[in-house]
């Protein structure tokens, strides 16, 4: 899958309370969650983000709560991919489980700047900066995760596994 979009850049340790504050967790509607995405880090973000945009974070992106509302809010806001130096583990699993593309790539996370446009080949983990010189390669996914990604999320994967068992 090919992605092309403009970068929104955030710092280290972006926690799930910044991604979607708990005061909005009284709903599971993706559109409502998206309307408050990143509100406490950048109140303008949810209104400004364009479909296809790429979010970039530093280390430990998505730390904190297990709320799946966080990747749901990012995905529903139109973000096509999140690139970070490292991801907190629950966020990492959640993103894959719901089909939000993520790439772990410290070099890209550090070099990419707000407003740069990037082209991403998700299958190959390749990130190319179209605004300034720079090409990066993300870490490959563990084999289980690759299968989940190929089946477009965990629930389809589980359905297959249940069929195998039956």
């Amino acid at each position, binding site marked *: 899958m090919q992605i092309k979009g403009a970068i929104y850049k955030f710092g280290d340790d972006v926690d799930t309370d910044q991604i979607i504050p708990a005061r909005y*967790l009284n*709903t599971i509607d993706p559109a409502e969650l998206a309307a408050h995405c990143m509100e406490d*880090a950048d109140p303008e973000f949810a209104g400004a983000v364009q479909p296809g945009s790429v979010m970039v974070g530093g280390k430990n992106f998505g730390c904190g709560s297990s709320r799946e509302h966080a990747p749901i809010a990012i995905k529903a806001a139109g973000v096509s991919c999140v690139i970070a130096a490292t991801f907190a583990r629950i966020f990492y699993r959640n993103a894959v489980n719901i089909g939000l593309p993520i790439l772990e790539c410290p070099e890209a996370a550090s070099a990419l700047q707000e407003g740069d446009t990037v082209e991403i080949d998700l299958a190959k983990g390749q990130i190319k900066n179209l605004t300034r010189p720079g090409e990066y390669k993300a870490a490959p996914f563990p084999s289980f995760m690759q299968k989940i990604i190929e089946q477009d999320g965990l629930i389809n994967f*589980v359905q297959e596994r*249940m069929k195998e068992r039956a």
Partner: protein
Amino acid sequence: MSMTISEKILAKHAGKEQVEPGELIYCNLDLVLANDITAPVAIKEFSRLGLDHVFDPERVALVPDHFTPNKDIKSAEQSNYVRQFARDYKITNYFEVGKMGIEHCLLPEQGLVLPGDLIIGADSHTCTYGALGAFSTGVGSTDLAAGMAMGECWFKVPESMKFIYHGTLSPWVGGKDLILFTIGDIGVDGALYRSMEFTGETIDHLSVEGRLTMCNMAVEAGAKNGIIAPDAKTKDYVEKRAKRPYQFYASDPDASYVEVREYDASQIEPQVAFPHLPENSRPVSEAQGIKIDQVVIGSCTNGRIEDLRIAAEIMKGRKVHNHLRVIIIPGTQEIYLQALREGLLETFVEAGAAVSTPTCGPCLGGHMGILAKGEKALSTTNRNFVGRMGHPESEVYLTGPAVAAASALTGSITSPEEVLGSAN
């Protein structure tokens, strides 16, 4: 080959003789857990599977604790969705308001999580149960949905870090101070994807409550799980509560660790973590005098009877400072009742504190103590992220129950010894 306690529990549940860090495995689960925020998403995903049953209705726990008693109509709708699911699927361990508690206080108390168990919960602080010698970790709602359906989950076996604590704790220092100190040392991603194993004679002497507090915050260092080898204290705690068999595991003496850290715990002061990360911990002596607007004593970190006893000991016969609100939240109905019988609640009310029914409430800025712009709270909870307890421009300082109670009396961050003298 030798293994750590975490590796042994994972191997057992994967049906394997042994596992190694980095290995991907499928494991059978002893219990899966969700709350009123995470269960609705899990139920929605679960319903896509078209099943008329969960893998085992006795091994699914649903605890509406975050926005309960419901704070608004939307929260009430979410709770109702969970309630209906629990009825339709005959979930035994569904806990209604009046019988419920904060999930990570409640499940150990009810004997639903036991030594040697493998547990996933759609709540990041599910790592709490490692204090009983279980492998227990937080997941999201979709993983939880898959767990409810199949009773299994895939894991990457984590590398283990060993933390050894030596010496006797100073007065008013407890599990919260040890874990805040440790997170301050290694950082909020210092144990990312790893297992944190807490050992040493300090841990041997720590109460089960203190151990639950420590393991609760393993996730605040990025860890997959926190774990403490079960011992006689664990046995005392679980044997009167368990309704099914359990098993004690211990790390082999020559088990391999990616990192070992040793601390002289006798030198650790009560800790305070400054905004906006739990790693910003400092000795209370460096936080003295910071004026605060609210104190919260409670949560899955410090809402247990021992925490309330410590707070009451300091607050007894004294008054909450005039410029301050104090909110005390016993973790479960059982803890509430115990605190009532011991006269702790009377102490709090006489001091001028509000006592709440069990709820996560203010910890995540839900309800029951939201901060206004510019306000500061000192809280025994586990997170001090931006906007965690209310307005994005409010601040949360984290600490244990002793410093929280002492500060409630003075209106600014205060060492318990300053209030009581050093006689304790």
